């Protein structure tokens, strides 16, 4: 089941990066905690419905810049635009992921993407963790679902 969640997380993310910004990604086996230098930009999106939890996505600034560039084109994006573009991509990933887990009949309320910096850690352990490798650097995704702890189940 945990493996299944990770596959769904991977597929939702890989599809989104490819569709939105032509960023091809590969799943890395056995992801470790990302180094701080690789987590320069981070976003958390909460969801609440038949289950509740959050998705956190982190990456180096270079990836967020690539995303903002492909979404906006033109001039070098500002830090705000990088964060905003990364948040919007995270929104799309969450929008793909939730129906793949819960089916498309159930309704979830999804929070606006929040900068991860300065946030309280979540009270649950991760339910799924995936690292994607791309030409622009690594992207880490951690899914938290209340009462669905990866550690407690493996």
């Amino acid at each position: 089941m945990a493996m299944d969640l990770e596959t769904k997380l991977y597929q939702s993310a890989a599809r989104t990066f490819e569709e939105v910004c032509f960023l091809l990604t590969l799943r890395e086996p056995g992801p470790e905690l990302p180094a701080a230098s690789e987590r320069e930009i981070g976003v958390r999106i909460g969801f609440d419905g038949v289950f509740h939890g959050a998705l956190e996505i982190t990456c180096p600034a270079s990836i967020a810049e690539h995303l903002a560039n492909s979404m906006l084109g033109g001039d070098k994006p500002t830090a705000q635009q990088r964060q905003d573009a990364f948040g919007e991509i995270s929104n799309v990933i969450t929008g793909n992921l939730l129906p793949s887990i819960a089916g498309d009949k159930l309704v979830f309320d999804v929070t606006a993407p929040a900068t991860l910096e300065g946030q309280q850690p979540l009270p649950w352990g991760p339910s799924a963790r995936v690292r994607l490798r791309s030409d622009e650097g690594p992207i880490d995704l951690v899914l938290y679902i209340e009462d669905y702890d990866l550690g407690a189940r493996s």
Partner: protein
Amino acid sequence: MKLNVMVVDDSAVMRAMVKKSLSLCGIELGEVVEAANGVEALEKLASSWVDLALIDVNMPKMNGEELLNHIREDEATVPLNVIVISTEGSETRISRLKSKGARFLRKPFSPENLGNQIREMLGETHGDGSGNQALPVSGPDF
């Protein structure tokens, strides 16, 4: 006739993308008004003439579904053409939005998708028997 469009999304990057798509999708564009959430959108709707609203769902302060409810409850805005542009994945919510006379476009979308939705919506507007009331907007070849 040029189409005045309101773009409602909490992401400035997404508003810029929607505006870019509008300019590429082959419709004759008039004024484009932006709002970052439902509250701002209602304020701007009260003071500007808008033919079509493109609305995100997940927004702080007032989300897109609540905004659509307000639009349909107010006599002045009830006939407004609305397309919801969102990452929403729940068919239940999408049906709910459609039952309130909105069309739905999933993110990510192409300018072509957007143009087709707008043309179809305006075609419906001019058509008959669709049951959809909408503002009397006329476009180039719609």
